[in-house]
């Protein structure tokens, strides 16, 4: 039975009072202040803290940099258990950079930026561009499966991670994968943990395959020329054409915005990396293909454009969507229709591979919900998805954050039940209420 007091005493006895404290407003998750916060020093301590929490019937919320704590279903107050935030803040080391083998081993609480800076010392990088890299930690980035424009060339986290250590609720520390890129021994737990929102175990360590830092990087940006509808179409065609030819862009990004009152915005960015000669040739080829579009100056920090969706004071919902590349045009059209009929403003930043982020703004909560549900229905009908990342709590409590898991939900429940039989980790916050 839930015994927060015993857990508190056990934790303080083991970790010392300076690493166990009561939760406060800054620790709130969806407005909910957890009982306590623990900061273990290493993986073994994380596992031990988890075990204490599980035995005491507490619910555990893993936390790295705290940049995405409100992603997922809200933590529902059930009056029975206490909550414990288990922080990986002190697990912040880059354990090893085997640059000759192009791999790196890093603790889950290390920030992305710190990892990249370390890897840059030998001219290498983790070929990923997550949100809020100065603050976001490896563990949190993995748990939320965050990725950016680079994935068109390098894949997402599932293609970059080669090993993982997980702390399970019963105190087990389990390794899977290894330090070599090519490895098919055993099941691919690193993939299972990626995007699992900490519901199967707490990631304490990850091993990644690396890539060289490119010698040159060049970006082109285009806007639709006069005549919005046809201009938009030619931009869409450009995006598809770039993917169909045999160039190797490391970013193909679409930025668009609209409202019922203002003209729409529709811009495309393309990035190439490599040798000077290689970049030059591809730039030229792209310009040759882009005759239906208007070349514009590349906006500052354009490859981090999606983070701007989180700024703004109006009531808004921010979501991540996925779709087939050829459905992008249709999605934009639908978005315009829905936002006009509901009186909403919208802004999106999407990657041509078929994933993007959308911000919907409007003071009418019901309109927001209706629009999101319409969009999700259409996306899911064509094999895509829509996941709400941030919205007013009122909206979150009336909507399913994740969307449909399809007929695989019972199987996902079985997996969860095996890894976390007591429902300790982030209970209720994942897809299907897992």
């Amino acid at each position, binding site marked *: 039975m839930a015994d927060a007091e015993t857990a508190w005493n056990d934790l303080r006895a083991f970790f010392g009072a300076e690493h166990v404290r009561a939760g406060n407003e800054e620790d709130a998750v969806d407005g909910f202040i957890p009982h306590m916060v623990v900061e273990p020093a290493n993986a073994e301590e994380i596992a031990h803290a988890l075990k204490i929490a599980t035995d005491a019937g507490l619910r555990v919320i893993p936390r790295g940099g705290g940049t995405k704590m409100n992603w997922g279903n809200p933590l529902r107050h059930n009056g029975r258990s206490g909550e414990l935030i288990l922080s990986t803040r002190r697990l912040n080391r880059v354990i090893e950079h085997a640059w000759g083998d192009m791999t790196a081993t890093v603790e889950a609480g290390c920030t992305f930026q710190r990892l990249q800076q370390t890897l840059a010392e030998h001219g290498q990088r983790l070929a990923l561009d997550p949100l809020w890299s100065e603050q976001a930690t490896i563990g949190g980035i993995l748990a939320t499966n965050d990725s950016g424009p680079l994935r068109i060339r390098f894949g997402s986290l599932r293609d970059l991670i080669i090993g993982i250590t997980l702390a399970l609720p019963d105190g087990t520390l389990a*390794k899977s994968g*290894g330090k*070599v890129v090519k490895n*098919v*021994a055993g099941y691919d737990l690193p993939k299972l943990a990626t995007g699992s929102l900490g519901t199967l175990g707490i990631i304490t360590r990850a091993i990644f395959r690396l890539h060289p830092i490119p010698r040159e990087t060049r970006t082109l940006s285009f806007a639709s020329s006069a005549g919005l509808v046809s201009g938009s179409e030619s931009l869409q065609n450009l995006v598809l054409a770039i993917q169909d030819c045999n160039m*190797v862009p490391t970013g193909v990004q679409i930025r668009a915005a609209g409202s019922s009152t203002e003209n729409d915005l529709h811009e495309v960015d393309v990035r190439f990396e490599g040798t000077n000669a290689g970049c030059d040739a591809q730039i030229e080829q792209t310009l040759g293909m882009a005759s239906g579009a208007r070349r514009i100056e590349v906006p500052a920090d354009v490859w981090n454009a999606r983070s701007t969706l989180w700024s703004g004071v109006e009531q808004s919902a921010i979501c991540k969507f996925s779709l087939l*590349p050829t459905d992008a045009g249709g999605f934009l059209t639908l978005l315009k229709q829905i936002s006009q009929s509901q009186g909403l403003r919208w802004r999106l930043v999407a990657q041509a591979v078929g*994933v993007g982020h959308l911000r919907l703004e409007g003071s009418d909560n019901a309109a927001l919900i209706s629009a999101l549900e319409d969009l999700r229905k259409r996306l899911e009908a064509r094999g895509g998805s829509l996941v709400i990342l941030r919205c007013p709590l009122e909206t979150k409590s009336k909507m399913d954050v994740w969307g449909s898991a399809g007929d695989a939900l019972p199987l996902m429940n079985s997996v969860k039940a095996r890894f976390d039989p007591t429902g300790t980790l982030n209970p209720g916050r994942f897809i299907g209420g897992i």
Partner: protein
Amino acid sequence: MEARILDQFRAIVGRGLITETSQLHTYECDGLTNFRVLPQAVLLPTSTAEVQAIVQICHREKIPFVARGSGTGLSGGALPVDKGIVISLARMNRILEVDLPNARVVAEPGVINADVTLRVAPHGYFYAPDPSSQSVCSIGGNVAENSGGAHCLKYGFTTTHVLALEVVLPDGSIVDLGSRAIDRPGYDLPGIFVGSEGTLGIATKVVLRIVKKPAVIQTLLAAFNTTEEAGGAVSGIIGAGMLPAAIEMMDNLAIQAAEASVHAGYPNCGGLLLVELDGPAAEVAHLIEEVSAICTQCGAWEIRVAQSEAERAVVWKGRKAAFAAMGRISPNYIVQDGVIPRTALPRVLSEMERMSAAAGLRVANVFHAGDGNLHPLVLYDGRIAGQEERAIELSIDILRLCVQCGGSITGEHGVGEEKKMMMGEMFAEPDLATMQLVRCAFDPEQLSNPGKVFPRTRLCAERTGPYQPHPLEVAGVAQFF
């Protein structure tokens, strides 16, 4: 097997039921011929519905089953299980859908790997995972083993190119894992299914990602006096920040065999490097010069760049035929599939030389130098008493060495039956127990390819938790293998 069960099977697959012993022998092993088990029956379904019906019977009657593609696997993954049946997917060999604008192909599991590329090649696309057996191996088998191939350094493995799967679970239910769009929310079930070696169910449809063919492919051969020098060139290439599409290495023994077999015209040298670069023309032209320069600096005494598609094919012919070519220089061989960090290559090669001399057996080496995947071919003569045992022991010692260097016991062939006892060298008990939680979630009754991959099957009702060693283990009297 009881007649009434066979009748039920016959009602599903009709003439696709094999029970005649002489015909069953065809299915008693896969590419690993040392292990043979006669199945009770072999079934060849032609549709998902038939696969489901078969598995439902197996579930009801507690009959273990082993799915089989083309049977080319090298670790005994398709080895039948005692008292079980084999479900061959060979007849489910249609490409169902080709969606070029979205670069996706939907294939049944029995489709031959190379046929996917064949189908999309006219449009300038290819299916990237290219195991050397690609002209015969199946997509379903590739999924089970997470097959790689020479080009996975740059292009990744099967799991990189599988977006979704229709799976018949061991309880007979059908589920759709993943989606055609990327990043389906929820657990990455395709990710855990690919590479699970048939232990989690049977894939009946696979959504594959295809890739645009690069503008230009350039293949270079470099001859060195020793494999150490060749290894130095590899380090140089990586150190210069390049990522070739493939880097392969062969030692002299492997070259001799390949020459005797396919006459690729390789230079007779101590260490041969095969480097392939692909991408935009300007990029490749620049990089191939750099690679040549690095090879020369590291001691290459001959460098050839393939001048045409035909020449490129010949260059690869030797490498891809390497295993089969061993038959020219030895009556028998055991091939292993260890992986090591690239930087450990010199140490491992010299250690292997010492070990092979001590065992009195020759070892030929073919090596995916780019990603550290070693294929030592331990050559022996099975007719000479004791040689087979020594060969097996040597191949296991080589794997042990790989693990000691921070590597893996298998880079692409899978654990299967052959290497399950070595899983304990790579993973501790808690690691194996945790992996088996997945097994229990998908297949609590242990019907799907049971006994493979894990050395000690965990009963699904067993308690999880940190491993509690037996008092005898603690006392050092007994040991778990």
